[in-house]
């Protein structure tokens, strides 16, 4: 007995999955679904480009921990989400993406707006379904959400032919999940965890290297306990930023190519490296053969394929980070008894590196991008949710906006997708409406998804975009300066010629503020914060500022370049702020 159409069942099943918001843009083959969305309790956010829809869904997912959802049409609508699929796959972001498809009897005929989207996305989807019969919909939707959110999360695609949307069927709630080949290992191997505990207690120079997996699995509390109770310093990857408070004395900040010197030096000297929910990417390790040369490595990750992929691991533990850390903490407490090992010599060494090689930059000269990020940090009291674009802006955001909670820092880590940050900020703000949400942007990246200004204005999503406008594809220019004899091939964006970001913002009905002097920065940020709507802050920063410190590609972490500068408040005590943390 039929009680609804495939499209109605799809929307009902999304409601049953708890979807409250989705991002999309309609077209012919997905019309039946949008027709049903018209009356649904789900809020549909109409974007101006499908790439915006999927990045917004990613931002929503990353900010809330829930599955992000978007719905687009077949053909070009579907191919426009490919970058977002790849992005979500690399950064393990849970998404369910629904694409329209031509009718089942037309598939394979090169019909109008037909694209083999399940084929195109094979390498970048955690899984995909081509739904050929609406009667399978209740199971397919349940399985798609289950796959997206569990294990190592990732994007799942459901391709829905238009005749399946129209097919009459019976929907009685979500179907049963039957995935005989899908059983993520959650609980770590007891003996391995015991071995890890013993190694931690025996280590003289241990360091924790934490990644995005700590955030995905909600293991921040357990990580903090591990670090504090055992006096372990913690460094994080870009994706791990926020998993352990950077305000903590034990935090070493980020490691790797643009990490802190003290994090990288600690890795070079460590005798034990405890990697948690991280994947040893090339931006982290530098020259692989010289990475952590003295360290025994413990690697905790839910994805067995990550273990041993890039580095040899002495103590592998496959499991959910939170569950493994919980057990590890218990075992450590028992083994430790009431002995405490503050590892005085190692602690003194690391603290000396922190003192000698702090993060800093020269304030002298033109408006400095790092200063802008620092002022955003202070004026939002370190509490904003920060999205970023890609390039220098992203690295300065990571270096100078200290994150204190998980899901606070949302960036395209694995794929490095320019244009990610702005739509992601829209998604994050919709997911956490009480947060102040900033996109720290570059003048290049922002132009890749700038059309979402219309979405932000019309849907009333008051995100603040701080464009660190250096007139260049800055990170590429920096590499040209350092490695290509300063030949700035195709990297100048001709600041002052085009575009005028303030006028663009205003044309879309948002607020635009231009800042060219250091003295104007605070007032502009405050004005943006006070304004109830989307704002573009166009900061004309020093054009040829570089991101330092830096490990050149292929070099070991010990080889960091860049002058040693001291924090602004040390050099200019008159600028020191009251601490707010």
């Amino acid at each position: 007995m039929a009680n609804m159409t495939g499209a109605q069942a799809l929307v009902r099943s999304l409601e049953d999955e708890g979807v409250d918001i989705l991002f999309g843009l309609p077209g012919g083959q997905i019309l039946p679904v949008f027709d049903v969305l018209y009356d649904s309790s789900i809020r549909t956010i109409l974007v101006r480009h499908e790439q915006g829809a999927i990045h917004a869904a990613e931002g929503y997912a990353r900010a809330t921990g829930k599955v992000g959802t978007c719905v687009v049409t077949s053909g070009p609508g579907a191919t426009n989400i490919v970058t977002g699929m790849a992005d979500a796959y690399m950064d393990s972001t849970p998404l369910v993406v629904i694409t329209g498809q031509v009718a089942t009897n037309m598939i394979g005929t090169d019909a109008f707006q037909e694209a083999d989207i399940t084929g195109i996305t094979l390498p970048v989807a955690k899984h995909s379904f081509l739904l050929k019969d609406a009667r399978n919909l209740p199971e397919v939707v349940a399985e798609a959400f289950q796959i997206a959110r569990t294990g190592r999360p990732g994007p799942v695609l459901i391709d829905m032919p238009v005749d399946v949307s129209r097919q009459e069927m019976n929907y009685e709630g979500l179907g049963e999940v039957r995935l005989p080949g899908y059983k993520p290992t959650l609980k770590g191997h007891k003996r391995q965890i015991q071995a890890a505990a013993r190694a931690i207690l025996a280590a003289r120079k241990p360091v924790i290297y934490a990644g995005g997996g700590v955030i995905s699995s909600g293991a921040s509390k357990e990580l903090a306990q591990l670090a504090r109770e055992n006096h372990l310093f913690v460094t994080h990857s870009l994706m791990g930023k926020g998993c352990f408070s950077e305000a903590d004395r034990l935090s070493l900040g980020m490691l790797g190519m643009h990490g802190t010197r003290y994090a990288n030096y600690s890795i070079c000297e460590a005798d034990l490296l405890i990697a948690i929910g991280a994947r040893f990417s090339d931006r982290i390790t530098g020259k692989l053969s010289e990475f952590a040369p003295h360290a025994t490595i413990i690697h905790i990750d839910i994805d067995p394929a990550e273990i041993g992929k890039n580095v040899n691991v002495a103590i592998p533990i496959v499991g959910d980070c939170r569950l493994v850390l919980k057990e590890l903490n218990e075992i450590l407490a028992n083994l430790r008894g009431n002995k405490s090992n503050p590892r005085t010599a190692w602690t003194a060494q690391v603290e000396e590196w922190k003192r000698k090689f702090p993060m800093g930059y020269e304030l002298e000269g033109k408006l400095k991008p790092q200063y802008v990020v620092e002022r955003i940090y202070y004026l939002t009291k370190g509490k904003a949710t920060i999205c970023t674009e890609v390039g220098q802006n992203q690295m300065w955001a990571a270096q100078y906006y200290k994150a204190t909670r998980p899901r606070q820092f949302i960036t395209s880590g694995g794929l490095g997708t320019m244009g990610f940050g702005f739509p992601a900020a829209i998604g994050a703000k919709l997911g956490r409406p009480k947060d102040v949400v900033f996109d720290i942007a570059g003048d290049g990246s922002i132009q890749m998804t700038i059309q979402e200004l219309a979405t932000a204005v019309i849907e009333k999503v008051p995100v603040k975009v701080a464009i660190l406008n250096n007139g260049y594809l800055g990170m590429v220019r920096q590499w040209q300066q350092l490695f290509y004899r300063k030949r700035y091939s195709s990297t100048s964006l001709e600041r002052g010629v085009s575009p005028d970001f303030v006028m663009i913002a205003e044309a879309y009905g948002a607020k635009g503020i231009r800042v060219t002097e250091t003295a104007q920065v605070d007032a502009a940020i405050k004005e943006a914060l006070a304004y109830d709507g989307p704002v573009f802050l166009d900061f004309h920063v020093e054009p040829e500022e570089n991101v330092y410190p830096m490990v050149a590609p292929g070099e070991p972490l010990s080889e960091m370049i860049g002058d040693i500068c001291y924090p602004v408040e040390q050099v200019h005590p008159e600028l020191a702020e009251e601490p707010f943390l």
Partner: protein
Amino acid sequence: MKHTLSVLVENKPGVLARVAELFSRRGFNIDSLAVGPTERPGFSRITIVVDVAEHSLEQVRKQLHKLINVVEINDLVPERSVERELMMVKVSVNESSRGELIQITDIFRGKIVDVGRNACIVEITGPAQKLEAFEEMVRKFGIKELVRTGKVALQRS
């Protein structure tokens, strides 16, 4: 080093494409691949011969396991499994050489499955070395066409 993986998969659309794509993307070379139904309805078995170093084999297995439709993977060690492959060869023959071809085929426990005026089709099963030995023996007659299924294998009990 060659390894034979026996991969039990859910018989879902696109599952072969997923497996093939994974091998090409991760840069693993497939030597041969055979796929067919199993004793369990809804499940197929893919037998893959892959040429990789020990370290990469571990990655192949782990990456395969990540495919949602992959249920089970067995690394079949030659000493503990039975391996077979089927080959058909269309061999040029004339009245005078046909007898010799039949003799050789008998020795290899093969079968002549088609006889024409100028050619015969011979079917041979066995491990790869046997098929290759047969091929060597009949080369002098002239091989018009040759096809092999790729290896299938089962673990001994």
